[in-house]
């Protein structure tokens, strides 16, 4: 084969790929979003269901963290973001919408007989005041407590700090993991461990055991009626001045439709405003 004919072959191939790519793109809008990695499993199911209802709408979601997502929206790089914390002063020019609810559960290893903690006890464990299971009471263990948490830049940590620790920071004996799944893994592998983990990662098959907080269990019902101490809203974030109508329509569907509510509940979060 000569160089010329190879060049011609390559050109033909390029044209062929371009032609194949066109019909897929024609008429379809892709909504680019970014933000929370913890909520990605739930969002992915919602994206898929919405795409089946509206064939011409597709989603591209970058799980770069809630804070980074808001920055993407401010810079105009993304149409929307999803965040797990309420707005902060650094979120200028964005509007927050409550989408649905989620809970942060406190979990221990199944070998631990502990069933309930108070908010004060949880705080003592994660600030290094209580370091042995004997001090906590209600547990069959008499070993050192191994608290596991999230890294200080994580939205889940900020939330845990506000809800439980108050003005204090978690103590230096708390092992810091970079994702919810890693916290669950660490707790499931260590009999002495305790960790705070999102509802979606605390269910059956996760290898961890939920404990009640102030006697209230970390369940969808208790999160929905806001009696569980660590419930939080998941927020959709849009640019205030140039919000995309297509994204607004999607957010409305997530907030209000019956179908989205069922999907959210099945995926491990809690529907807040959806029709029954």
């Amino acid at each position, binding site marked *: 084969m000569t160089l010329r004919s190879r060049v011609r072959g390559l050109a033909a191939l390029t044209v062929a790929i371009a032609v194949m790519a066109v019909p897929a793109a024609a008429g379809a809008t892709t909504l680019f979003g970014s933000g929370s990695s913890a909520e990605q499993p739930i969002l992915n199911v919602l994206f898929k269901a919405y795409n089946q209802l509206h064939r011409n709408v597709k989603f591209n979601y970058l799980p770069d963290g809630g804070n980074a997502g808001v920055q993407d929206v401010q810079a105009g790089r993304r149409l929307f973001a999803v965040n797990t914390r309420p707005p902060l002063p650094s979120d200028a020019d964005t509007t927050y919408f409550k989408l649905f609810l989620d809970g942060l559960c406190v979990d221990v290893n199944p070998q631990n007989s502990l069933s309930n903690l108070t908010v004060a006890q949880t705080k003592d464990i994660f600030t290094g005041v209580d370091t042995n299971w004997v001090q906590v009471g209600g547990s069959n263990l008499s070993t050192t407590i191994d608290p596991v948490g999230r890294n*200080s830049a*994580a939205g889940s940590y900020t939330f845990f700090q506000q809800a439980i620790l108050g003005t204090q920071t978690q103590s230096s004996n708390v092992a*810091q993991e970079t994702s919810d799944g890693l916290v669950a893994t660490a707790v499931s592998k260590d009999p002495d461990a305790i960790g705070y983990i999102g509802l979606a990662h605390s269910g059956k098959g996760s290898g961890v055991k939920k404990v009640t907080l102030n006697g209230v269990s970390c369940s969808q019902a208790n999160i929905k009626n806001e009696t569980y101490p660590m419930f939080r809203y998941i927020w959709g974030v849009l640019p205030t001045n140039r919000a995309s109508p297509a994204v607004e329509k999607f957010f409305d569907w997530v907030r209000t439709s019956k179908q989205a509510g069922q999907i959210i509940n099945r995926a491990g979060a809690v529907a807040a405003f959806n029709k029954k």
Partner: protein
Amino acid sequence: MDEDDFLEPGQGMSQDQRAELGLGALVFVVVGLLLAMLAFVVHEAWPSFAHNGIAWFGPGGSLDQQIQAIINSGQLKEAPVYTFHAWALIWSTILITVGAVAIAFPASLFIAVFIVEFAPPWLRGTLEPVVRLLASVPSVIYGLAGVLVIVPFIGNHLITQSQKASVTPIIQLSGASLLAAVLILTVMIAPIMIAVFVDGLRAVPRGWLEGSLALGVNQWRTFWKVGVRTVRPVLVAGTVLATARAMGEAIMLSMVSGSVPFAPNPVDGLIFFFEPSQPLAATIIHNTEALNSPPMKATLYAIGAVLLFSSAMLSLIGWTAKQPMRRYGVIA
């Protein structure tokens, strides 16, 4: 290929000349990009260095609280806080990198010598592809193996309750430790070293070895004194490559090192090996979510600049060390 591929005339230049120009231009682009990247990173990092001065590299205070204060000041739009004393992170990087390279180097050298000179052909045929495959396994896979197997094993079987109780609540001995980090990093970088060493040892001229053998020197002594001595520049090159990889490793170390900015203390005896720490590169991974806080962004770029500078220094040291060895023959 046809003849006319090479005979095509193009604007008065031969194909060789065009290739030279084109490739030369590409090299300039790459070097230019590299310099631009260096300048960019240092520029972004400057506020952090300027505020802390030489104390940036020193110890002092709780790093966790410093990072928290830096993040909050940016997110709450308050006056930026830059106070950051990175000694615990630097010390952790040194311990883990030096530990892993110190174990991996002799092990890799012996394995490479075995593969090249002593292994029977069938074993050589299996070992070599396995080593090259290991060298290309993504680090997150090693991290997963660490989190699921090594870390729980160390935590549940090697660390005792009394050791745990003796250090709480300062730190937690969970198994994610210096020991786990060094062990897994060793397994990660050894295949790179072995692959480089094997290529070097293969390049030793056969005649040099045969000359020694003909004088009645045995195979082991011949290979050790002639073969390995000849490839010393290759050993340096392989070690520099592996050390750079070890220093920049982020994902795996963020999963198994304990990820607490604590400086392990050798005076603690056996517990020292079980103590958690957090190397520089893993710190960047841990805090990327806080990039929307401008002072934290500058701090993370400062960590990146230190890593870049260290890699450059490492290459320079490797190059300097190789110079006097060049006259022995094999050039890496």
